[in-house]
């Protein structure tokens, strides 16, 4: 297994520690666990908490800092943080204005957060949540709803900025939900990641195959096919997004997320394909973010997110942020 790691069983804690050590001015790691909180604790604004499995770095902890998250809570590899950890994070950053939990829509994450929120409420903490379900490869109509993908980074940015403005919990939640309502993501994978505990690939894919719509943990997508050009791949992907949500005449932010093993050069090539396609479809691009925002270890592939902006969301998108990953 060609990974620069130490013992697989220490992977999560070493990852968290490595992030904390890189930005001591921004991050404070709670002793003995992977929870990361802001160095300058908020006192009177709504606090934001996000948690997800480890293996998706820089999420969640790379988004902790002024203007975004107050606490990041990573779970074990590819599995949700447990309610006790979530509660610990919530309690650490809670203020009188309350706590907004941002949740990516996987059953495990939702259940663990729900449990943690119940426990927090029992301790008289005002806590609300927003569930991100941006993956158009999954059906909206399903009772479990859509999976959450990298688009969550954009919602964190928006909600974080609204919270810094001093808005109350219901307003921050409302704005986050409004942003999420105009958010769509679609992924594609061409190489599996290798699970550190057993050295096995997370899924099988033929020599020349890719899969459009695959989830962050190798969940089934919508189309398995031979590798296509960047242009055709992007067209297929954006078609799925535009079939689902009408962005015509809208202004959007584009987030191109590498899954860990796809290099910057390809992401830039992809961007120009996206740009051309959106221009042809009368969609205006306000800004484009390109990089590794929510990975799956070293999986090959990427995702495209579009988020609709209105003047208020634009201001929030542009507002100051000081995190390891996003700075404004």
């Amino acid at each position, binding site marked *: 297994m060609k990974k620069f790691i130490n013992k697989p069983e220490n992977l999560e804690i070493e990852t968290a520690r490595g992030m904390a050590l890189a930005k001591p001015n921004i991050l404070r790691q709670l002793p003995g666990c992977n929870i990361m909180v802001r160095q300058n604790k908020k006192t009177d604004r709504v606090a934001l908490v996000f948690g997800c499995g480890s293996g998706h770095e820089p999420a969640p902890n790379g988004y902790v800092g002024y203007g975004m998250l107050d606490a990041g809570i990573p779970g074990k590899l590819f599995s949700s943080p447990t*309610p006790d950890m979530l509660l610990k994070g919530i309690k650490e950053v809670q203020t009188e204005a309350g706590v907004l939990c941002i949740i990516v829509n996987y059953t495990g994450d939702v259940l663990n957060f729900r449990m943690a929120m119940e426990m927090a409420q029992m301790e008289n903490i005002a806590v609300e949540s927003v569930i991100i379900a941006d993956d158009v490869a999954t059906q909206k109509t399903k009772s*479990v709803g859509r999976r959450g993908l990298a688009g969550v980074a954009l919602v964190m940015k928006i909600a974080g900025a609204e919270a810094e403005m001093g808005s109350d919990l219901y307003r921050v939640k409302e704005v986050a939900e409004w942003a999420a309502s105009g958010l769509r993501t679609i992924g594609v994978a061409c190489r599996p990641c290798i699970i550190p505990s057993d050295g096995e690939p997370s899924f099988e894919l033929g020599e020349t195959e890719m899969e459009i719509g695959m989830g962050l943990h190798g969940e089934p997508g919508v189309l398995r096919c031979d590798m296509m050009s960047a242009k055709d791949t992007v067209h297929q992907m954006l078609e799925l997004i535009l079939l689902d949500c009408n962005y015509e005449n809208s202004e959007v932010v584009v987030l191109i997320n590498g899954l860990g093993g796809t290099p910057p050069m390809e992401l830039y090539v992809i961007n120009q394909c996206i740009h051309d396609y959106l221009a042809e479809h009368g969609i205006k691009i306000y800004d484009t973010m390109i990089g590794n925002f929510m990975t799956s270890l070293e999986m090959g592939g990427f995702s495209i997110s579009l988020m609709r902006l209105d003047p208020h969301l634009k201001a929030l998108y542009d507002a100051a942020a000081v995190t390891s990953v996003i700075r404004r």
Partner: protein
Amino acid sequence: MTGKEFMLAAFEAISHNIIEHEEYLNHLDNAIGDGDHGTNMARFSHIILKDLPEFSADHDDLGEIMHHVGMCCITEIGGSAGPLFGKFFLQASLSNKNNTFMEAANWVLAFEEGTMGVSQIGQSTEGEKTMLDALFPASRAMQETLEEGKSLPEIFLAGAEAAEKGVEFTKTIQASKGRAAYIGQRSIGHQDPGATTVMLMLQSMHKTAVDMHVE
């Protein structure tokens, strides 16, 4: 009437039973989920075996012991099953706060309340191919046998048998909750791992009750 001794024996039996079935539960989860349900439950079971005798050494309150088990589910199981079983035991513990003994009625009520807790936290109900397809029928069967005035071993037996039927039923339906929901129709034909765990738990409860001659 049962006391701390029975409760400890029951959790010990449950833990052993789950550990024995770790591979089997993983295998079931592999078909329709991510293949970790056995590992998740076994991790919890090992902790219970080690930790519960210790904890209960200076705790006689059965509600507190159940609460402790619930917290252990929450911290140790992970995945979906963690908060679900956690909620089950936390909720079940409420009506037994300050009880050092439990009557049959206490057990049946605790089980019902636990089941309601799972349904509430999971925002799910019967027929969605989850552990609730074992929990709800078992809860009803236990309620009925209690009303018929049966003994605790008989009540647990009724629960275990109803859970087993529920597990069989999960094979016939499509999942609409949990990971298995993503694979849609392809989930039909496979039995739900969470429901299977519920069945194993009730079988162990029954066996412990028989072995210890409780009433």
